[in-house]
């Protein structure tokens, strides 16, 4: 199963989360979405979103310069 990619660089929270939400209809249960963003509250928002929607945040990685990359299992 290919990991789907989502680029949320340059947009401010909570827009990245809205973009993730917009991916919902295309994601099957168990599929993985990789998101990269540079908004300061990104990690907190994603974790919050995952908890509410019962999705699994797999990992978060600080890539420097405010960039954060993560994978979410749907």
């Amino acid at each position, binding site marked *: 199963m290919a990991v789907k990619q989502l680029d949320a660089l340059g947009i401010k929270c909570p827009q990245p989360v809205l973009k993730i939400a917009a991916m919902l209809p295309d994601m099957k*249960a*168990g599929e993985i979405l990789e998101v990269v963003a540079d908004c300061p509250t990104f990690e907190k928002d994603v974790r919050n979103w995952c908890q509410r929607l*019962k*999705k*699994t945040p797999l990992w978060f990685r600080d890539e420097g310069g405010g960039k954060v990359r993560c994978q979410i*299992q*749907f």
Partner: protein
Amino acid sequence: MNGSFDIISEEDVLHAGNEISRLTREKGFSILDRIQIRTAFSELARNMVVHAGGGKVQYTLLDDWGLQLVFEDHGPGIPDIGKAMSTGFSTTKSMGLGLPGSKKLADDFHVVSKPGEGTKITFFRKIRNDQVNNKNEGINNGQRHDFSRGERNG
């Protein structure tokens, strides 16, 4: 929901059977479901009284699932299950339809018997009233999706 009945006498068969009827009615089983469960109960509980001098029935009743009855006795056991399950075979009274007949009324039926130790029969009947039939079983496996209850994907 679950519970159990001790079955020693014919009267116990009747009383426990009535209780099962009441429970299945409350759970919304269809008339056909209820009558078939009641009939199978009567057959299997009678078998315990007649062949093993009594035993115990445990029931488990779940929404969107069905009813499971476990009949357990410490009687002489069934020497040849294959023979006992075939229509027309009977050691004592009844048409010899108790066991094979109940199996035909079940969605799942399982007999374990050890000569000298006892017999355990598991009878399962799925609920199939209209309310459940209208649900799309393939997708949700009869479980309700509700965010407040917490559904887990993956």
